[in-house]
């Protein structure tokens, strides 16, 4: 041992002790032992939805208000239509080309890039938004037809500094990988909750002749009703688990196995 090196001060002992509170002297004299190791493992597993998430601060700090809508050069508007509608509960007025889809208007004019263009032909669901309470494909919706309507996008789901329960459930269940289809999946899932409450049927409904007030969805029901949202990464089982948890409010366990 090098005598020139100073011993730990009391303060420093306290500091190092944060991690190993009880057997500090033992550690200092004989190194980390197995008991401590097990304890650390226990401590670290706490806190599932913790502050480690990127963007936690910015997310709720950001104003819901979008800045001024940039006017396009006159050459850029053909067959111009003035559309007034609500986007995420904020009134918007925008002059658009009659050809502009709702998706392109959200993304290119209103700075709402959460909704994604996966196919632009209604074959993938990445552009799903909620218009007047119903999930629709914004790529096959002309913005011109949205006059007077209310559009909710992924950016409008979190409220009062709180995630929509569906967003939280997707986070918990890892209901995505690349995240590109996720805004559409979540908008779709949020609207699906309302459809289930209204008793809507699906192709796999046990008996479509039985009208039900409110449907608790089986895994298969959720899967069929979410089949309009393609996820190429393959997060489907996690999406089903997230929706199940959001609908029932009951904890759905995540499972993986270790063996051998």
């Amino acid at each position, binding site marked *: 041992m090098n005598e020139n*090196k*100073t011993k730990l001060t009391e303060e420093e002992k306290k*500091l190092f002790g944060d991690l190993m509170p009880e057997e500090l002297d033992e550690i*200092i004299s004989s*190194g980390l032992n197995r008991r401590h190791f097990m304890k*650390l*493992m226990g401590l670290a597993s706490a806190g599932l939805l*913790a502050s*480690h*998430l*990127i*963007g936690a601060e*910015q*997310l709720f700090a950001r104003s819901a208000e979008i800045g001024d809508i940039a006017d396009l050069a006159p*050459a850029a508007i053909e067959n111009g239509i003035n559309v007034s509608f609500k986007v995420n509960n904020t009134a918007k007025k925008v002059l658009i080309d009659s050809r*502009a889809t709702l998706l392109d208007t959200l993304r*290119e004019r209103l700075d*709402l*890039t*959460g909704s*994604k*263009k996966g196919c632009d*032909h209604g*074959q*993938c669901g*990445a552009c799903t938004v909620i218009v007047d309470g119903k999930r629709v494909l914004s790529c096959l919706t002309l913005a011109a037809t949205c006059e007077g309507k209310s559009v909710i996008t*992924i*950016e409008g789901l*979190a409220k009062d500094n709180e*995630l929509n329960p569906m967003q*939280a459930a*997707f*986070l918990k269940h*890892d209901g*995505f*990988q*690349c*995240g*590109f*289809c*996720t805004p559409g999946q*979540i908008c779709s899932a949020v609207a699906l909750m309302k459809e289930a409450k209204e008793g809507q049927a699906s192709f796999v409904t046990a008996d479509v002749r039985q009208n039900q007030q409110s449907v608790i969805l089986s895994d*298969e029901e959720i899967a069929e009703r979410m*089949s309009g949202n*393609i*996820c*190429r*990464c*393959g*997060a*489907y*089982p996690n*999406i*089903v688990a997230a929706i199940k948890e959001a609908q029932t409010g009951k904890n759905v366990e*995540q*499972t*993986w196995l*270790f*063996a*051998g």
Partner: protein
Amino acid sequence: MEEKNKSIGKAITRIDGLLKVTGKATYATDYPAKNMAYAVLFKSTIASGQITAIDSAAAEKSPGVLKVITHKNTPKLNIKGGLRGGALLQGSEIHFYGQHIGIVVAETFEQATHAARLVQVSYEEKAGKIDFDELAKDAVKPKGQELADQIRGDAKKALGEAAVKVEETYETPIEHHHPMEPHSTIAVWEGENVILYNGSQIINGAQSSAAATLNLKPENVRIVSPYIGGGFGSKGGQWANLVLTAVAAKVTGRPVKLALTRQQMFNSVGLRQRNIQKVSLGATKEGKLISISHETTTHSAIDSEYIEPCGDCTKIMYDAPNSLISYRVVPMNVILPTYTRGPGKSTGSFALESAMDELAHKLGIDPIELRIKNEPEKDPSNGKPWSSRKTVQCLQEGAKAFGWEKRNAIPGQTKAGNYLIGYGVACGTYPARQRDSSAIIKLKRSGSQVTATIELAASDLGTGTNTILAQVAADGLDLPIGNITVNIGDSDLPPAAGSVGSVGAASFANAVNDACIKITNELIAKSDKQFFVRPTARQMMISEQTLDFQTRADAKAPSNTDQYSTHSFNANFAEVKVNIATGMVKVTRFLAATGAGKILNPKTARSQIIGGNIWGIGMALSEESIIDPRYGNFATRSFGDYHVPSNLDVGKLDAMFINEEDFIPNKLGIKGIGEVGIVGVAAAIANAVFNATGKRIRSLPITPDKLL
């Protein structure tokens, strides 16, 4: 196990998850730019020949159009700059149907899209090589040395002498990656420098190939790619659209956004080639293999060769004294094939593991037992010891958890209502490797709060890179994971390997881990205190009252790795139900047991594995791109025709990890799981379909018509 393990191995929620569930994660086309212009590509409508004229007058006059760019006015680019697939508008020659032949840039997306339809192109058409069924008989040896015939013993002779034989041909169609985010780019020039917002699995590769193609130095090109909407190999090498966006921006003097349409994805960014695989197995009556052959016939592009190595699994999976692996290829007028999830292994394992199932059936042996009987003690292809191989445990533990004992070995016997039920098993493997990567760690202290920033040009295409790097850094620095900021996806950061070939986690995490060790060493070295126990970086920052400290590590694979054969292994178990009347198949249960070294985060690892399984479900049951042999176009040309699995196609999936400590591939013992999750899946499903119906389908996908 690591001494201070507290975050690694835990099911930490993705650190970038909040941004993803709120729509705030920024993919390539989500960046704002002042005065953005929109580019749309137009493509050839012949497969082979020459452009004789392009009439762009109407397009140029169309409102809002800024520029029409064709081979006639595209600046000279370096066609050997490292981009894949050609189509750089450097000449009038057409090599495949759907080759890019021009770009329209306009004020708005609507205007550019419309004007691109107004361009009239005339061609002199040549007879193309587009009918694989015709061309396959003329296939020749590939140019690539690694694909030369690999011969051990005399497979043919041994097969002739074998008591029991399987000699069958298995076919897999062209498949497309179809990440949900179509390849797209925003290019912004600042003087001689260009920023390219572009989803890139290999950040530095995108940078160097874009720079070389644009005749620029790498430092003049910056790739920004923090979020990638999937890639699966198609965003590994980069394609013409990346550089053509930069050209459009340069020519118009505006920031330009160019996104491929879903239809354009079929012939712009590679594909998984079509393969005809002949597998011959010869065995003794007891089920000991004496001969294995795997002969693949496939195609490549007309002017460039890429072949997925279908025989790779066969090389190493089973012990047999006689073996032949071969490839034959025909050039075709089709976009260059490229790396596609589990390249070679996913398609090759379909052939090999179907054949093993056929052999087991012929022998009357349980397919698990047959595999265990032929388990090799060392790598049969090169005689090297395994660094670790848990195939037997995967089979046994998997079988137990799956309930394999309930399988009726006689096909077509298990009925439930309108359905036939079947079980299938198949194995898979994928190499484990670490590639050179560097990382910078920057520590900051404010009072007793220490925070760290990790910087490297790594990529996260949904794999969980951000999260596992935060975990590794948290453990390596003794910090809560929330105190770690991970900065990746930018070529301005220290160079790193790519998220390709399952090397990402091993390469990136070891670079970060090395940097953690190095920064701790440096902090200790500069202190004059003495320690009985090695202190942590956090403790040192506080005790030494250091405000800022940083270091960089350049990590390499351990020097002795090459003396071993290093691979992940798995066993896949499928339960299918087949509707007797309609022939529709559903995978009701699937279990993948995987031995893939250290599992850094079981939550994201499970997602990767089941994601690979779902890719395998698509491969087995529904994915197929069909070329019209008259024209060379894809008759399947949209997401309506190309069926990636939907939510309802997927039943209950379970991921099982076999504990495996193997520090030979790298210091952290990571083997990588991005690819192995798809390997063996299609075979397990096809074998389950056989068990359910008695019908052996050797040509994927298993669509309802094939089961009638």
